């Protein structure tokens, strides 16, 4: 099953907007909004948050829930709701900027990552670091200095390719999410124009336009698959015109 996400915000519109945005990049991930008070004011509602946790736990069916919050008492309300909910051990709070963290979490969940890795993907996006993650976490929860990457030791296969973007909009949020989401599920260390291929934020920051080139370098068991995956996306124009 896929990890489900919850957004806790002081504002219903912020929560719903963040869910809408992340949903574009993670269409198969269930994301629940818990923003504002029951009567539509600014604030956080314990009951709404708890209800969102329970809905998310149901839909995740054991895969776990990762929660993104905005300011101050939203964190406190979310922590309290974890304590009160039916499966406290299955609900993880990510300490991350709300929008960027949610997108990173959504893409990781879309790629099949487990709850700890989804939380890691969100938490790796730091405040004030527009370039995105430095501590990217793979779908198996391994960090770059962890076990999964050791399988990509010097002897591991290497593949590379250069592809010219044909779609009019070039690399923007959705293509970045498709690249990152697919690569996250592969056993390979992949860079695109030198940045981490599993980081939506870093890919978006490349801002490569139509006619620009993506240079993909992959290392590891699935290196060939990774390069082929990006080639196919680029050739299809990411499904766009």
């Amino acid at each position: 099953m896929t990890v489900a996400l919850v957004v806790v915000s002081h504002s219903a519109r912020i929560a719903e907007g963040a869910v809408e945005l992340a949903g574009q990049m993670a269409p198969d991930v269930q994301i629940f909004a818990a923003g504002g008070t029951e009567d539509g004011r600014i604030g956080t509602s314990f009951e709404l948050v708890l209800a969102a946790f329970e809905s998310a736990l149901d839909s995740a069916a054991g895969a776990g829930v990762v929660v993104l919050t905005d300011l101050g008492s939203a964190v406190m309300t979310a922590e309290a709701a974890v304590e009160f909910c039916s499966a406290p051990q299955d609900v993880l709070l990510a300490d991350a900027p709300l929008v960027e963290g949610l997108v990173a979490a959504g893409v990781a969940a879309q790629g099949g990552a487990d709850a700890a890795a989804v939380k890691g993907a969100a938490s790796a996006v730091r405040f004030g670091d527009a370039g995105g993650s430095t501590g990217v976490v793979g779908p198996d929860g391994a960090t770059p200095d962890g076990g999964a990457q050791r399988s990509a030791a010097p002897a591991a296969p290497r593949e590379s390719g250069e592809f010219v973007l044909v779609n009019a909009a070039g690399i923007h949020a959705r293509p970045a999410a498709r690249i990152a989401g697919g690569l996250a599920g592969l056993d390979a260390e992949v860079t695109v124009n030198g940045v981490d291929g599993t980081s939506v934020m870093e890919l978006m920051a490349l801002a490569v336009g139509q006619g620009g080139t993506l240079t993909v370098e992959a290392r590891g068991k699935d290196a060939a698959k990774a390069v082929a995956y990006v080639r196919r996306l680029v050739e299809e124009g990411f499904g766009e015109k």
Partner: protein
Amino acid sequence: MGLGVTWAIDWLQLSARKMAEHRVELIELDRAIGDSDHGENMDRGFQAVLEKLTESAPDTPGAALKLAAMALMSKVGGAAGPLYGTAYLRASTALGPQEDIDAAALAAALAAARDGIVARGKAEPGDKTMVDAWTPAVEAANEAVALGADAVAVLAAAAEAAEVGAVTTDPLVARKGRASYLGERSAGHRDPGAVSTALLLRAAATAAGFPDGEQA
């Protein structure tokens, strides 16, 4: 002879009355260093506790506190809702299914409540928060237990210490919560959360039969 569910329900009902009586005082305190909603929020929260008590009758002190925790968590809002909700929930968990609460169990429940508030709010003694009322209350309760006090005397000691603790927040500079935005200007005001804590613990002692010094 310890305290049973009747005490717990009396405590919650008296707490609701005290929050209503002190609503304006808490609003005034919070206006000085916060967002002036503490009195309103606590009054609304405990009115919700009263409503829940009319809907279902808890059969143990722990069940009564759990019912209160849910209502406070939902209806108080802001930071005080999760803080008090967590406190009452942790106390409820500490008491478990016991029907008769003795002095030691009571002191342990107070400590669990305080620990929950610290875990949730990350405040330490001296930060000018409700922790400055809870921590001396827990210490006084433990000392009373060590001296062989009964449950009523433990509550009286806790209430007394919380009241003193609330007064000691006057000169402090806030380091947590909304008041911390004021920095040095928060000194010279009493922390509203510490005051509401003292009122609630005083209500606990009064409900247990300890003479209320505030009024007849």
